[in-house]
C-alpha cells in the first residue's frame, strides 16, 4: 500500500524568482494600503464607546440612526452585528463629557422608541488605555520576533534565523495589509491572532528547516538548492495536512463562533494560508540567498 503512494518532486526553488516577485507585490500592496488608508482600528486601540444592543424583532438601521440623529450621538456609526436584530453603535470620544456615562445615555435614548431593547454588550475604552495598547501590542510582536530569532540561531544557525524572521515579518505585514485593504475591524483579538499566526507559521518553517538540516548531513552530493528542494518535497504532505486540519477547525470557528470572534478567525485563516506559503517560498529562499551550506550545520548535530 505504502509503496503505491507517489512521492512529490516539485522544483520549488526553481520558481523562487517568481515567488519573490509575488511576495514583493503583496508586501507592496500591504504597505501602500497601510500608508494611504491605515487600519480600521477598533476601540480597543482608539478609545471610544461601543454598545451592542439586541432587539426582539428585526430593526431598520435607518430607524436607529434617526433616533440618534436628534441627539448628541448624531455622528455615531450604526451597523448590524451578525443579524438584523443585533445592532452595533460606535461613538467616538465626546469632548467635555464624562465618557463612562455615554453608554447609559445612549441606551436611554434607544429605549425611547418603545421597542424592547436589550443591552448585550457595552465597551468603553479611555484614550490612555488605547494608546498604551497600541504601544504594548507593537512591542509584543517585536519581543516575540527577537526571542524566536535567538532560539532559532541557537538551535540552527544565524542564516536560518534570518530566514525564519523574514518569513514571519512577511506574514505579519501581509496579514495586517489584508485587514487594511479590506478595511476590516482590527481589534485586540486580531492582534492575538497575529501572534498565533507567528506561532503557526514558525511551526511550519521549523519543520522544513529541521529537514534541511538533516538532509545536509545525509545527502553528501546535492547542491544546497537540491537539498532544500528535496526537504520541501519530503515535508510537503505534512505541510498540507496540518494546514488542512487547522483550516478545518478555523472554518468551523469562522462560521459557528459568532460575530465577536470573526475578526480573529479571519486573521488566522488568512495568516495560516500565508504562513504555509511563506515557509516554502520565503523562509527557505532567504536562507539559500544568504549562502547556507553544509559546513554551517556541522557542529549542531546530535545534541541532547
Amino acid at each position, binding site marked *: *500500500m*505504502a*509503496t503505491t*503512494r507517489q*512521492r512529490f518532486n516539485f522544483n520549488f526553488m526553481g520558481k523562487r524568482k517568481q515567488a519573490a516577485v509575488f511576495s514583493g507585490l503583496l508586501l507592496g500592496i500591504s504597505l501602500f494600503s497601510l500608508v494611504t488608508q491605515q487600519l480600521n482600528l477598533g476601540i480597543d486601540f482608539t*478609545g471610544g464607546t461601543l454598545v451592542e444592543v*439586541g432587539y426582539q424583532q428585526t430593526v431598520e438601521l435607518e430607524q436607529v440612526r434617526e433616533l440618534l440623529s436628534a441627539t448628541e450621538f448624531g455622528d455615531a456609526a450604526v451597523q448590524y452585528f451578525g443579524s438584523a436584530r443585533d445592532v452595533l453603535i460606535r461613538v467616538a*470620544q465626546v*469632548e467635555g463629557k*464624562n465618557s*463612562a*456615562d455615554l*453608554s447609559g445615555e445612549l441606551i436611554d435614548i434607544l429605549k425611547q422608541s418603545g421597542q424592547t431593547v436589550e*443591552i*448585550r*454588550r*457595552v*465597551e*468603553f475604552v*479611555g*484614550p*490612555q*488605555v488605547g*494608546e498604551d495598547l497600541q504601544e*504594548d*501590542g507593537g512591542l*509584543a510582536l517585536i*519581543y*516575540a520576533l527577537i526571542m*524566536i530569532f535567538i532560539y*532559532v540561531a541557537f*538551535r540552527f544557525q544565524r542564516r536560518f534565523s534570518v530566514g525564519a524572521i523574514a518569513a514571519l515579518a512577511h506574514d505579519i505585514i501581509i496579514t495586517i495589509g489584508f485587514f487594511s485593504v479590506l478595511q476590516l475591524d482590527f481589534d485586540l483579538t486580531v492582534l*492575538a491572532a497575529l*501572534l*498565533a499566526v*507567528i506561532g*503557526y507559521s*514558525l*511551526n511550519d518553517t*521549523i*519543520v522544513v528547516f*529541521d529537514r534541511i538540516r538533516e538532509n545536509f548531513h545525509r545527502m553528501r552530493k546535492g547542491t544546497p538548492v537540491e537539498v532544500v528542494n528535496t526537504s520541501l518535497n*519530503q515535508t510537503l*504532505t*505534512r505541510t498540507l495536512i*496540518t494546514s488542512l*486540519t*487547522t*483550516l*478545518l*477547525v*478555523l472554518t*468551523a*470557528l469562522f462560521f*459557528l*463562533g*459568532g460575530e465577536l*470572534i470573526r475578526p480573529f*478567525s479571519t486573521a*488566522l485563516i488568512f495568516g495560516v494560508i500565508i504562513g504555509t506559503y511563506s515557509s516554502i517560498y520565503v523562509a527557505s529562499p532567504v536562507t539559500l540567498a544568504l549562502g547556507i551550506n553544509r559546513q554551517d550545520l556541522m557542529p549542531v548535530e546530535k545534541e541532547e
Partner: protein
Amino acid sequence: MNRYPLWKYLLILIIVAVGCLYALPNIYGKDPALQVSAARGAEVSEITRYAVEDALDTAGVGYGDITVAEGNLVVRFQDEETQLKAQDVVKEALGRSYTVALNLAPATPEWLRAFGAEPMFLGLDLRGGVHFLMEVDMEAAVAKAEERYVSDIRTQLRDERIRYKTINRRRAEGLLIRFRDAEQRRLGIAVIEDRFTDLELEQPAAESDEFPLIARLSEAAVKETRRLALQQNITTLRKRVNELGVAEPIIQQQGLERVVVQLPGVQDTARAKTILGATATLEFRMTDEDNSAQDALDGRAPAGSRLYYDRGGNPVLLKKQVMLTGDYIIDAASGFDGASGSPNVSITLDGKGAKRFSDATAEEVGRNMAVVFIENKAETVEVDGEIKKRRETIEEVINVATIREQLGKRFQITGLDSTEEARNLALLLRAGALAAPIEIIEERTVGPSLGQDNIDRGFTSVKIGFILVLIFMAVWYKAFGLAADVALALNLVLIIALLSMLQATLTLPGIAGIVLTVGMAVDANVLIFQRIREELNNGNSPQASIHAGYEKAFTTIADANITTLFAAIVLFSFGTGPIKGFAVTLSLGIVCSMFTAIMVTRSIVNLIYGGRKLRKLVI
C-alpha cells in the same frame, strides 16, 4: 521492539485518570444560589445557617443544599424565580450586617468536591457581568498629602510660636512658607527638619521683608504616598463592592496606578459606576457669622473663611477650619426624618471622632454648622490629539443647622434631594472615602444572554472542528489515525482538566485557543506518521519504521512546539483579560498535545503492533 515498559503504561493511565477526574465537574451544570457573606463585625457560622433555614421555612420558599465554607454560606435553589424570592427573604431576615448576593453555584457532586475538583472559571465575556479598569489620580493623591502638610506645619509653627506670614501649596508642587525675618525662618527650618523628615527644604533668596522657604516631598515620600493611595483605594473599592452585594468579585492591582474590578452577573452598571467611582465625602464646618457672604462675593473674603454655595446656588460663608471629616464615620444608614418626612442619613462616629466632635460642638451651641458634600471628579479627554486630564471638585453645602446641644457619637443629617441619594451617601460613608479620585478608563459589560451565546457558539465550534479533524485523521491514516483521534480527545480532556485545576479564566478567545489547538495538535502525529510512511517507502520493516518514525520526528516536534510556546508566552505577558485567556489555552494545548501525540499514540500503537511479526503496515 516497540514495547513500552509497564511503568510507562501505568504513568499514562494515571495521568488520563486524573485528567478525567478533574475535567468531570464541567459536565454538571450550575444551580442558582444565594451567597451570604458577613459585612461589618458579623460572622457566618452555623447560627447564620439556622437563621437562613428558619427564614426560608417561614416564608415557604423551597431550597436545596446549604453549605458553609470559607466565611460564605451558599444556598442552592431549583430555579431563578425561587432564588430571587429567597434573596428578599434572607436579606430581610439577616439585616444589614450580611450581604446577600445572587450567584451560580457549581452543581458538582459531593464526592468530586472532596478531590477539590471544580469546573472551569468562566471569564466575564462568558458569564456576563461588568469589567472596570480604574486609574487612580496620583497627582491628586500627592496634592492631598501636601495639603495635610500645610495644615500640620501650620499647627506646629503655631505651637512653637514661630511667626510666619503664610503657608500655601504651590501651583506646581511643594509648599511655600513665608517668614517675617531670617531668624524666624531659621527656627522654622529647625522645627520642620526635626518633625517632618519626609520634606526636602530649599531657601530661595530673601526679598525685602519676606523670607521664603520651599518644602517638597522627598521622592521616597511621593512613592510611598502613591503606594498608600492605591492600597487604600483598593480597600475602599473592596468594601464598596461588598456593599453592592456581588458574588465572586475580582479587585486587583494592575501596574502602579490602576485597579481592575470585575463584577460577574452585575447588570445595573450605572449604579455600580456611581458607587465605585464616587469620591463623595462629608465635612462639617461652622458658618462664619461675623462676616457676611456678600463681602466675600465682593472679593473681601476674611482670612479664616471661604465662600461655598448651597444646592440652590446661594452663597454661604464658612470657616476654613474643618470640625470633622468623613474619615471618622463608622456607620451610616439612610432613613426618613421623623418630623419632616424627608430623607436623612443617620451617622455613627468612632470614639476618636465622637470625642473630637463633642468637644468642638460644646463651644458652639447656638451657632450654625454646615454639612459640606464634597465630590472629586476626574476625566481624561483627547483634545487635538493630546491626552489631558481634567479635574473638577464639587463642594456643596447640603445643610445648615443650628447646633442645639453638644453632639456626640450619633446624629443625623438632612437636606438630601432624594431617598436614592440618601441611600448612596450612606453606602459611601460606610465604605469609607477613596484616598484619591479614581477614573474609569475602561468598561466592558457583557449581558447574560450574550454570555450564554458566546458559550454555546464557542462549544459548538470546538465540537464541529473536533469532529471534522477526527474524521479526517481516521480516513487518512486508518488505524494510526484512530490512535491519533484517541490522543486528540485526551488532549481536549487534559486541557479542560488543567484549566479547571488551575482555575485559570476561560474566555471566548480562550475557547478559540482550544479550537486552534485541536487543529494544530494533530501536527505532531502527522509528522510522525509521515515519517513512518517514508521509512516504509525506503524499504524498512514495519517495526523498524514505527520506531524510526517516532524517533526522528521527535526533535522536529520539540523544536516546532517550543517556538510556538514562545509566541504564547509573549502573548501572555503583554495581554490583558481575554487575550491572556487565549495565551493560556494555547500554551496548555501545546504542552498537552506533546504528551498525547507522542506518548499516548505510541502506547496505543505499541499495544496493537508491538512485539509482533508484521508483514505489512497500513498507514
